[in-house]
Structures are given as structure tokens and as C-alpha cells.
């Protein structure tokens, strides 16, 4: 009897739990269920009959916040960039183009006028006005999370029914790139004021091609097409973002047709995509640079000696690192700036030459070798690169101690210059060279996040400031070319590579454009019935 009771109790608990989870998953509208059903049932088609009405994409992490002025991680922005619009926009490898701004003009060195599109609506049907634009930019400036992207703005002034003027603190050439970043998205003032920030961060309303239907934390986000989107009706009725943290699982889900698009394919899974005729690979150079910051601040450290730094650079066979650990999914870096970044200029490099490295080491203050501390975070790939570099430096009689820290401690260790060589994966997020030159090389940024070499040079400062103030791209390139020469001569870093970004789709997906900033806008994507 008691056993029966126990069995009943256990069964009741399981049932209750099932009901609870079912309830928590089905609190939304019927569209929600149909979206999910369609995701699994390829028979359901849109009005054309040939295309699925739901496209599912997989990414490695969940959205941190739906508020574009808080959630700045790539995993958040890949979703929110489909919900919100910005004044400018970058598509593919292109330059910033007007989006919410119909047009723009530079009034003088520091003032830019933007004419805002008329008739743009938020998802709740309200009109997007210049009030919203000013309020949004002010909100982004006040946000601790994203203000670095709009910190160049002194004030935003409404000058007409559909015009605003952005006053910059100083001449700032990359303004259009910064205003195309999803962190400077335009949000609805009235809605946020009425509902509060926390509500907004879970129930966002934007003016982008898709509106949010449901967010299942750690699991998925469901979006539905906003038919009144000012650029036209989105190609697919529903979009679903699935969180699949394991890279191998993302590829399996793609192979099985559980998802149509998968982001962040790792180097060791690329061969699986290549071998499968049903999958299509999208490879593009990223704006990330794997590099080591040398410690230039502590006189008692070996890396204070220029010849040691140069010897280290010459001793590293970077192509071997790319061919082995990264399995070819990277290109050699000549500077922090990747070739797809605006105002990139080629820079001389310290190419692998062991004899030259040995000679430089012999001429340095450490002819018999030295001990170095290398700091990295817990990324397996980074650790493997560090281990290869450690082995290569043994040729110079340099003993490297690798210190692996979790992210918070890693940042602290670099800021407190515990390292001789600190691994960094810097991303030029805005796609403009100034985004990297200023924080990484300006003397005012010494010790702050970015300039972990603690590099400072008056001529370099002058050129960095000049570069951001010029509006002519060719003139900027000339300035940056001169700046690169200074950085090269000082050998502030060991540049390894720019890893490639790999995304994959099933062969049925059409209209997918891999964006250079990694934030893919999916409103043109559609998927044929398989």
C-alpha cells in the first residue's frame, strides 16, 4: 500500500512538473504555438506555398537583455538588431548607409544634421519621432553599458519636425559607423516611460523588421514579422532563435534540419560542413585580432627591451599556428586593424625568421634567455595558442609561464600589468580604425582597457587625434599609415591573426547576408521547403 502511495506520489510530482513546464511554455498566443509547430513541420508554408513560414537560427548564448542600451554582447545584439533600427546601418561588408535617417550632412567640424524618415512606426503602432531619436541617444549616453559608443556626442538638438543635429565634443570622423552600431538603437520614449526599464528589457518594442513574441530564457526567442516595417515586409513570417551552447551540437542541429542557420561554427567543425552537400558555409574575415600585448611599462621586465620584443615576434611561426590550431580558419595579421575595417592601411610585419630572432636576442640585454609570464583567459583555443608560442620561444631560451585566469581575474591581471605577454582578442566593433587606435595606443588610455601594452608616444597621440578629426578617408589612411610605422618600430604587440567567422545554413536558405560586424539582419532571409 505504502509503495503504491509512493509510486503515486512520484507520478503526481512528474505530472505536476510537466503541467508547470507546459504552462510556463504556453502562456503566449496561439501564433506562438503555430510558429513552433511550423519550425518542426516543414509542410507548413507561407502564402507562396514554397517557403517555410519560420526560419530558425542557432547561436551559442542567450540574450542578456533585450534593451539595446544594456545587452551589448554579440548574442544579445544578433537578436535585438532585428527588433530595433538605428540611424545608420551597415549591411555585409559595406559602408554605413542611412536607415532611420533619410539623409545626413556635416554642418561643420563637430556638428552633423540628420533628417529622420517620416511615417516610421514602432511595433505598438505609435509613430517614431525626432523626440524618440533625441531621447534614445541621450539614454545611450547615460548607459554605463554602451556609452563608449556614443561618448563622442556632446548633445543632441531637435532642429525641426524631422531633423536633429548631433553636436560632437570634438571633430569625430567615424560618427556614421558609431551610429550604425545596434547599441545606438532608437527606442520608444513613451513606452519606456510608461512601463519602466525592466519591463522594456523583457518586452521590447522597436521599429525594426521583427517584433518579439516570446523569450524563453536560456532556450529561445520568437520573433514575428512587423508588416509595417518601413523598409518593406520581411521575407519570412517568423524567426526563432535557439540557444545551443555546444558548437558541435549546433552543427548536428543544422545537419538534422532542426535549425536553418547556425552561427559561430568552430574551426574543427568546418570540415563537417564542407563534407555535407546539404549545407552551405559562409566564411568572412572578422574584425577580431588575436594578439599579445607586451609589457612596456616595467623596466625590470624583459619585454621592456625592444630587441627582446622584436626577437619574440621573429621567432613565432604564425602561419603554423593558423594551420594547426585554427585549422586554416584565420588570416595573418599585420596590425590590430583587419583589412575589412574602414581606413585599414597595410603595415610592415615581423615575419618568421628564427636566425634573425636569435641574433636580436643575442644583442639584447638578455643574451642567455629569460623568463616570461604569459596571461590568458580560460578559452581552450587561446590556451592552445599560448602553448605553441611557449614551445616556439624555447628556441630563444625563453621560458614562458602561462597563467590562465577566469575572465574577471584575467582582466585585472592585465590591468595590473602582471604580464610580460598578455593574450588579447580585440574586436574593432564599429568597423572603423579609430575604434582601435584610440583605446589601444593613445597615451591617455595607458592601463585602461585596451592599452595593455601601456604604450604612450606624443607623435602617436597627435596622429590618433588627427585621424579621428579628418573626414576624408584617404587623408585618414595617410595619417594611420604613419601611425602604423611608429607602432611597428616600437613593436608594442605580437600580432597573430584575424580569425575567420564561419556561419552555415542549409542549402534551402536564401537571402542570408553575413555581416562584417557579426550582427546579421535576417529580414531578407527565407527558406525553401525541404
Amino acid at each position, binding site marked *: 500500500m505504502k509503495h503504491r502511495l509512493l509510486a503515486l506520489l512520484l507520478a503526481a510530482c512528474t505530472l505536476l512538473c510537466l503541467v508547470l513546464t*507546459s504552462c510556463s511554455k504556453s502562456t503566449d498566443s496561439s501564433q506562438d504555438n503555430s510558429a513552433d509547430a511550423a519550425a518542426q513541420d516543414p509542410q507548413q508554408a507561407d502564402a507562396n506555398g514554397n517557403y517555410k513560414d519560420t526560419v530558425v537560427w542557432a547561436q551559442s548564448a542567450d540574450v542578456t537583455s533585450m534593451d539595446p542600451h544594456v545587452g551589448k554582447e554579440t548574442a544579445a545584439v544578433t537578436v535585438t538588431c532585428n527588433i530595433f533600427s538605428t540611424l545608420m546601418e551597415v549591411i555585409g561588408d559595406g559602408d554605413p548607409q542611412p536607415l532611420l535617417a533619410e539623409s545626413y550632412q556635416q554642418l561643420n567640424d563637430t556638428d552633423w544634421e540628420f533628417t529622420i524618415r517620416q511615417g516610421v512606426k514602432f511595433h505598438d503602432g505609435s509613430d517614431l519621432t525626432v523626440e524618440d531619436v533625441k531621447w534614445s541617444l541621450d539614454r545611450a549616453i547615460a548607459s554605463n553599458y554602451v556609452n563608449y559608443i556614443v561618448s563622442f556626442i556632446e548633445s543632441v538638438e531637435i532642429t525641426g519636425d524631422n531633423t536633429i543635429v548631433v553636436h560632437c565634443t570634438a571633430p569625430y570622423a567615424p560618427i556614421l559607423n558609431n551610429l550604425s552600431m545596434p547599441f545606438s538603437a532608437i527606442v520608444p520614449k513613451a513606452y519606456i516611460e510608461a512601463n519602466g526599464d525592466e519591463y522594456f528589457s523583457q518586452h521590447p518594442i522597436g521599429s525594426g523588421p521583427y517584433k518579439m513574441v516570446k523569450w524563453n530564457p536560456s532556450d529561445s526567442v520568437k520573433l514575428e514579422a512587423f508588416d509595417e516595417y518601413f523598409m518593406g515586409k520581411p521575407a519570412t513570417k517568423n524567426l526563432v532563435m535557439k540557444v*545551443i551552447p555546444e558548437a558541435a551540437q549546433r552543427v548536428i542541429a543544422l545537419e538534422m534540419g532542426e535549425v536553418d542557420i547556425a552561427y559561430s561554427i568552430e574551426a574543427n567543425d568546418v570540415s563537417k560542413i564542407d563534407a555535407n552537400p546539404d549545407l552551405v558555409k559562409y566564411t568572412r574575415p572578422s574584425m577580431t585580432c588575436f594578439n599579445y600585448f607586451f609589457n612596456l611599462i616595467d623596466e625590470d621586465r624583459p619585454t621592456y627591451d625592444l630587441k627582446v620584443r622584436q626577437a619574440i615576434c621573429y621567432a613565432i611561426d604564425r602561419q603554423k599556428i593558423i594551420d594547426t590550431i585554427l585549422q586554416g580558419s584565420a588570416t595573418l595579421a599585420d596590425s590590430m586593424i583587419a583589412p575589412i575595417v574602414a581606413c585599414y592601411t597595410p603595415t610592415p610585419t615581423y615575419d618568421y625568421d628564427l636566425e634573425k630572432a636569435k641574433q636580436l636576442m643575442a644583442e639584447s640585454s638578455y643574451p642567455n634567455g629569460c623568463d616570461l609570464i604569459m596571461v590568458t583567459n580560460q578559452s581552450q583555443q587561446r590556451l592552445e595558442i599560448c602553448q605553441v608560442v611557449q614551445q616556439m620561444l624555447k628556441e630563444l631560451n625563453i621560458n614562458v609561464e602561462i597563467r590562465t585566469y577566469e575572465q*574577471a581575474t584575467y582582466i585585472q591581471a592585465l590591468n595590473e600589468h602582471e604580464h610580460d605577454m598578455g593574450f588579447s582578442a580585440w574586436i574593432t566593433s564599429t568597423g572603423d580604425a579609430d575604434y582601435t587606435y584610440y583605446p589601444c595606443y593613445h597615451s591617455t588610455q595607458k592601463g585602461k582597457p585596451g592599452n595593455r601594452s601601456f604604450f604612450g608616444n606624443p607623435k602617436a597621440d597627435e596622429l590618433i587625434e588627427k585621424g579621428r578629426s579628418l573626414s576624408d578617408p584617404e587623408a585618414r589612411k595617410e595619417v594611420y599609415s604613419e601611425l602604423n610605422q611608429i607602432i611597428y618600430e616600437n613593436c608594442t604587440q605580437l600580432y597573430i591573426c584575424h580569425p575567420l567567422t564561419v556561419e552555415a545554413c542549409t542549402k534551402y536558405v536564401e537571402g542570408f547576408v553575413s555581416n562584417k560586424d557579426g550582427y546579421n539582419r535576417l529580414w531578407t532571409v527565407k527558406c525553401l521547403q525541404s
Partner: protein
Amino acid sequence: MFRLILKRLLLLIPVLIGVTFLVFAILSLAPGDPVLVVLGDNATEEAAEAMRSELGLDKPFLERYVNYIWDLLHGDFGKSYKTKLSVSDQILSRFPNTILLALSSMLIALLFGIPLGILSAKKQYTLLDNVASVGGLISVSMPNFWLGLLLVILFALKLRWLPSQGMSEGTGPMLKSLILPAVTLGTGIMATIMRMTRSSVLETMRQDYVSTARAKGISESQVTTGHMLKNALIPIITSAGLQFGHLLGGSMLTETVFSWPGVGRYMLDAIKTKDTPAVLGSVILMSVSFSVVNLLVDILYAFVDPRIKSQYKKHGKKSALRAKKQEA
């Protein structure tokens, strides 16, 4: 019995204070600034300072801890540093998923573990016993993530019987998506329970009351279930209870491999970013789950073993007498 439950629940208070203090102290003393992790490489120093002040991280450790406990007493678990969302909402939205996975894994473990353990004991030193022992050893030794991936490759990718990941909607698809993670988690526990059942049944097999039962002419199945298993249940319940308590805290690896939206993954992400309120919230949930499950196990003892039940009753009466004396 009621007094015992009350007493155990009251004991939860010092446990929670101790646990939160320890976790709070470890997170505070460990090197690394959570603000720099949350804001990222590009944050300005002013933004970092402003955020430290907003989150109260510029205050002394004890003041922060007392503030946290005060908020906790008011039912406020705080907001995540990273997402600015309420920690309790975030955890509670994931907890049913974790309970479902935990219950299913336990069900698999018990359904297969106990009968296999009994068979093993009754057929000691036979081929079946040896196969079960070796199988159990392999199951316990196999890492969850590896077993999970093997199951995915076989049942999802090759045979296409089950979904490879995620938690599908609707009861039918959800149950289908539950099978692989539950089997992955349940396999190791099943092996432990099987070994425990085997040794426990072996012990009771040699008892006089089993011989007496057989001598009375009771059928072998009744002897096994009514006499042997019933007396062997206590260590099995203890072991299963401990395992279940662990499972309720979330299974980070299995949840990650199968993209299961449970509290384990939430806690893992929180630890990575030193998100103190999120870590504390998860740890409190773990502690409470563990304590409650242990209490349930203690109550279950009373149902299984009349001797323990009488002890509880005696204890209850003594306490009642003591209370009466004090009143007088």
C-alpha cells in the same frame, strides 16, 4: 513528526546564512572585478566607477552582505549585474525545467537500478551479476557530456528518432526531447543505486527473518519484495535522496550539452561573469532543495521502517512532555 519537520525547517535558517556568507565572501575575496567583465573591454573608467557605485560594490564587504541579507528577508534576491533582471524571476522560470529533468532521471535510475540490483544480489557471482557490475562501473565512470554526445550521435543524428537538443513545446514533443538528457543523467545514478541495492539486499538475504519467511512457505517473490527489499531500502533511499538533491541544483554539463534551459546553465554563466546576486540565488536554491530533499528522505524512513517511526514518535512525545513541564 510535525515538530521534527518544523525543527528541520528552522535549521535551514543558519544553513542559509552560513552558505550565503561563504559564497559572498569567496566571490568578494576572489580577484577580479565583476564590473569589468560585465561592461567589457571597451568601457570607460567613468562608466565602471558609476556602475560600481550603482551596484554598491564600492561599499565595505560586511555592509554589502548585511544589505543583501536584509533584502533577502524581504524576498528580494537582487538583480543580475549582467542582465539587470530580477534573479528570483530568472531562476524560477528555469526551475520547473530542472525539476522535470531531475525527476525523469531519478525515475529512470530507480526503475532500472533497483530491479537490476536485486537480480544481481540474488544471482551473485553469476554471469548476470558480473555483467551488471562491469556495466555499472562503466556507467559511473563515463563522463556525462561524453555519454550525452554519443547518445545524440546515435539516436538523433544516425537514427533520427529523437531531437538532438533543446526543450520542445507541447507535452508529446517535450517528453521526446526529455529522453536523451534524462537517460544521460540517469545512467550514472542508476549504476550507483544498483550497486547500493545489491550490497544492501545481500546483507538482508542472510538475515534470520528471511529464512523464517521462506520456512513459512511464502513465495520467493513475496520474500524478495516484502522482506528483503523492504529491509534493504534505507541505504537506497539515502543514496537516491542525496543524488536527487544534487540534481535539483541543476546539472551544468548535461544542460549545456542538450541546451536544456535549467538552473545549472544559469549558475554556470553567473559564475563565469562573477555575477554575485545570480550565483547567490542559485546557491540558495541548491541549499534549500538539498535540505528539503533530505528532510523528505528522513520522513520517508518512517514510512519504510516502523522502528524509525516509533523513534520519531518517542522523540515527539518527549518534546511534548518537556514543553508541558516548562509551561507548568
